[in-house]
């Protein structure tokens, strides 16, 4: 309720401005003798203006506490508004009780007109930003909504990271103002840092002042953005962290990031929040239609646990723990929606090489668990066509290194396999295991 009342402020403020400007006009006309007859209307206009001014001030005070506006600007706007209103009242009182010379009245009218305009302008700065009402920066400075046609093609620094800086930081660290001698409006400026040196240390989050300041507690004096300003969203922080820890470089695109990272989810949320183009679902994966309820029911009745990966994009993780029928048949039924299956967990199922033929249908797979199954290298042949696969768990299967030579060029594929030696494949290495075993009593 309070917030709602506060939000009436931007609407109400137009009334006292408009009405009192009319009042000033009438007062001006009154000083010319031929308009003397309008005297009767003058009080109605003034009082209407006064009431709306009071309403505006009250809603304004409520709004000031709710929103994260910069304190200084709010202070100026607030006291200008109250002061101007008081001056209007004083002027009205004097005008009704004393006779003044026309010149004096006119100069008062001009003064009041200027004051009310300035107050309005100060309010406008709060809602629209400092750059909104300036001629020189006509086009450049207005923050546009994110206008990326194809998110996959977007450049991480230029289209996303810089956008976050533009939106949140430039009012103090931009072309016009450089607090702490720091500018964040171009790549070179970001890299050269500010008063206290570099703000970004490539690939080192802990040493990057910019990230440190953002992560500090809000109550900390050094926290950025300052306490009373708009704060960064979690996903924006996540994106900045990713960018810095991956070398803060300028050439990589969204499509170069591996699909299953927090970064991709953050970009999705970011895109959701700021873009007007609705292609969120297409990030990394093509858009799919909803699966028919009957199909889903049929699959689930076999014991498949189907978990949507996110709310609306109809991609699923399928888990076979409760499949009672033979796993081959179950996979055959599941393959009706093979396009939708991104993660497939067949751990502990009695899947053999014959059942594995069904796997070739699941072209969209990104993660596959075949641990504790009966699959051998022959069954693995069926995975050749699955190009997006980036995780394959073969723990406790009778497969040896030679069987996996096909995958040696697939550096993006994380294999889990107890006997692997090639550490470039990021696997649990057995050397560690033997080291531990040696220490045991």
């Amino acid at each position: 309720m309070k917030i709602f009342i506060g939000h009436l402020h931007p609407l109400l403020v137009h009334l006292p401005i408009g009405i009192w400007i009319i009042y000033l006009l009438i007062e001006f006309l009154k000083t010319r003798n031929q308009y003397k007859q309008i005297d009767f209307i003058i009080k109605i206009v003034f009082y209407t203006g006064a009431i709306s001014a009071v309403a505006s001030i009250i809603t304004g005070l409520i709004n000031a506490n709710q929103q994260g506006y910069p304190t200084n600007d709010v202070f100026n706007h607030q006291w200008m508004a109250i002061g101007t209103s008081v001056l209007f009242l004083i002027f009205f009182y004097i005008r009704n009780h004393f006779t003044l010379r026309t010149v004096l009245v006119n100069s008062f009218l001009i003064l009041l007109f200027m004051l009310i305009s300035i107050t309005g302008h100060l309010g406008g700065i709060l809602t629209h930003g400092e750059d909104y009402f300036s001629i020189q920066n006509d086009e450049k400075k207005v923050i546009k909504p994110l206008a990326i046609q194809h998110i996959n093609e977007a450049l991480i620094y230029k289209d996303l990271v810089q956008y976050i800086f533009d939106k949140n930081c430039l009012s103090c660290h931009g072309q016009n103002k450089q607090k702490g001698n720091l500018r964040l409006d171009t790549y070179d400026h970001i890299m050269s840092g500010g008063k206290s040196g570099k703000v970004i240390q490539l690939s080192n989050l802990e040493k990057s002042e910019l990230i440190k300041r953002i992560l500090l507690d809000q109550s900390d004096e050094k926290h950025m953005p300052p306490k009373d300003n708009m704060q960064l969203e979690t996903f924006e922080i996540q994106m900045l962290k990713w960018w810095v820890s991956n070398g803060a470089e300028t050439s990589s695109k969204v499509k170069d990031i591996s699909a299953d990272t927090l970064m991709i989810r953050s970009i999705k949320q970011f895109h959701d929040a700021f873009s007007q183009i609705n292609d969120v679902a297409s990030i990394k994966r093509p858009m799919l239609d909803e699966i028919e309820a009957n199909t889903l029911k049929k699959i689930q009745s076999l014991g498949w646990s189907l978990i949507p990966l996110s709310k609306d994009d109809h991609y699923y993780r399928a888990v076979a723990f409760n499949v009672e029928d033979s796993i081959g048949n179950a996979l055959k039924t599941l393959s009706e929606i093979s396009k939708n299956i991104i993660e497939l967990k067949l751990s502990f199922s009695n899947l053999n090489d014959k059942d594995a033929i069904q796997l070739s249908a699941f072209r969209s797979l990104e993660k596959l668990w075949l641990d504790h199954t009966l699959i051998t290298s022959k069954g693995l042949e069926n995975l050749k066509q699955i190009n997006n696969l980036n995780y394959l768990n073969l723990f406790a299967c009778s497969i040896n290194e030679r069987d996996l030579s096909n995958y040696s060029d697939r550096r993006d594929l994380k294999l889990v396999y107890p006997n692997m030696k090639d550490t470039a494949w990021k696997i649990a290495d057995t050397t560690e295991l033997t080291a531990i075993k040696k220490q045991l009593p």
Partner: protein
Amino acid sequence: MKSNNIHQEAYRHNLSYNTRRHFLRECRTGMGMLALGSLLDGCNFFSNAENELLAKNPLAAKPSPLLGKAKSVIFLHMAGAPSQLEMFDYKPELQKMDGMDCPDSFIQGKKFAFIRGVPKLLGPQASFKQYGESGIWLSNHMQHFQSVVDEVSLLKAVSTDQFNHAPAQLLMHCGTPRLGRPSMGSWVTYGLGSENSNLPGFVVLTSGGRNPDAGKSVWGSGFLPSVYQGVQCRSEGDPVLFLKDPNGYDRDLRKSSIETINKVNELSYEEYKDPEILSRISQYEMAFKMQIAVPDVMNISDEPAYIHELYGTKPGKESFANNVLLARKLVEKGVRFVQLFDWGWDSHGTDPGTALDQGFVEKCRENDQAVSALLIDLKQRGLLDETLVVWGGEFGRTPMQENRDGKQNSFKGRDHHSDAFCMWMAGAGIKKGFTYGETDPIGYNPIEGKVTVHDIQATILQQLGFDHTAFTYPFQGRNFRLTDVFGKVIDPIIS
């Protein structure tokens, strides 16, 4: 009036009880109930949409609202509170002050469980060294942990506001020191369900010969439907009591009897719409499935010899190591939340078992091997990427030697300390080989990176894909959450 037979007589007699008074009473309560019924319905008392969902399968796997790295959690709770000063928090200054009277400023206005008067400071009863690339300090009681220390994020300045076991344990698991709230595992299974309907989504294992002081409330479901409460399994004998069919009672007969009972229950659900009836139905179903699945998963004797050697397990005995191995087996089979309690860490120094240089060392040795093995084993199976492992007690221990009732205890021990203690987390997107937080030179107060119990809970929920401030359940007219009105995700330890 003359009656023809005894039945008619009884009938008439019965009728005579239905007086005008009876009619009025029925009107009053009946109409009242009607009115109350609609009122309660208006307050969402019988939230039907929810019930419909429950009716299908209350433990069906659900997506997390945000992208979560963790699919499962293993929470290793050292009940009794292990001494951080003999394990992780190296304080050479404290060694120098060993035996000195505790400065007044530390005890003024403080409440302790047992310390009275002026206690003496007690130096670390262990030697410390730095290990791993991360250079984390570890005591000589943690010989195995050295090799996995680069997998964990160590929180060195955790603080709680409870200094007795039961309330502190409740705070750690239910977000409040008072009874009646759901435990973390219940919240998580309520939010995410389980990927394996043959096993409970939330399993509790205890060792050390005692349940935690806070009793079963630390795995209770509070106001959540009781289907989400933790299922306690025994690691010795039958894992779940009374699960076996009696002799001569075959599985088909069991099946048809459960089906019949559930049909009757469904009828009474139709009549009363009490969600607890649904819990009962699904529990019968689960018990039936568990008869096969549980003995299988709870049997560690099938594990290869190197695994037993790694963990230090001895099949057939109740031990912490066995429970740790079981935790891995359960998580591997899709169990969402495994909660381990290990009693015996309450090192007051009143007897050899609680002495820092005797019983405590034994506890550390047992714990160290099993826990290190768990991290290695999860890692080699690719499970550490999606399993969050949390280790800790309910509070810490004082830098002062306990002087129960003003007299020095006969063995070296420490009292309960709520202001600063150590916990660690590993796996599922938690930073590897990282230390967060610092305490003062004697380990009494946090000086940097202080985190609270609610922060830990917020972080666990975050890794599972929840915003802890948005994950709520309406009860008695307000939305409740695990972290109540507190908690902040510990961002620095998230990679």
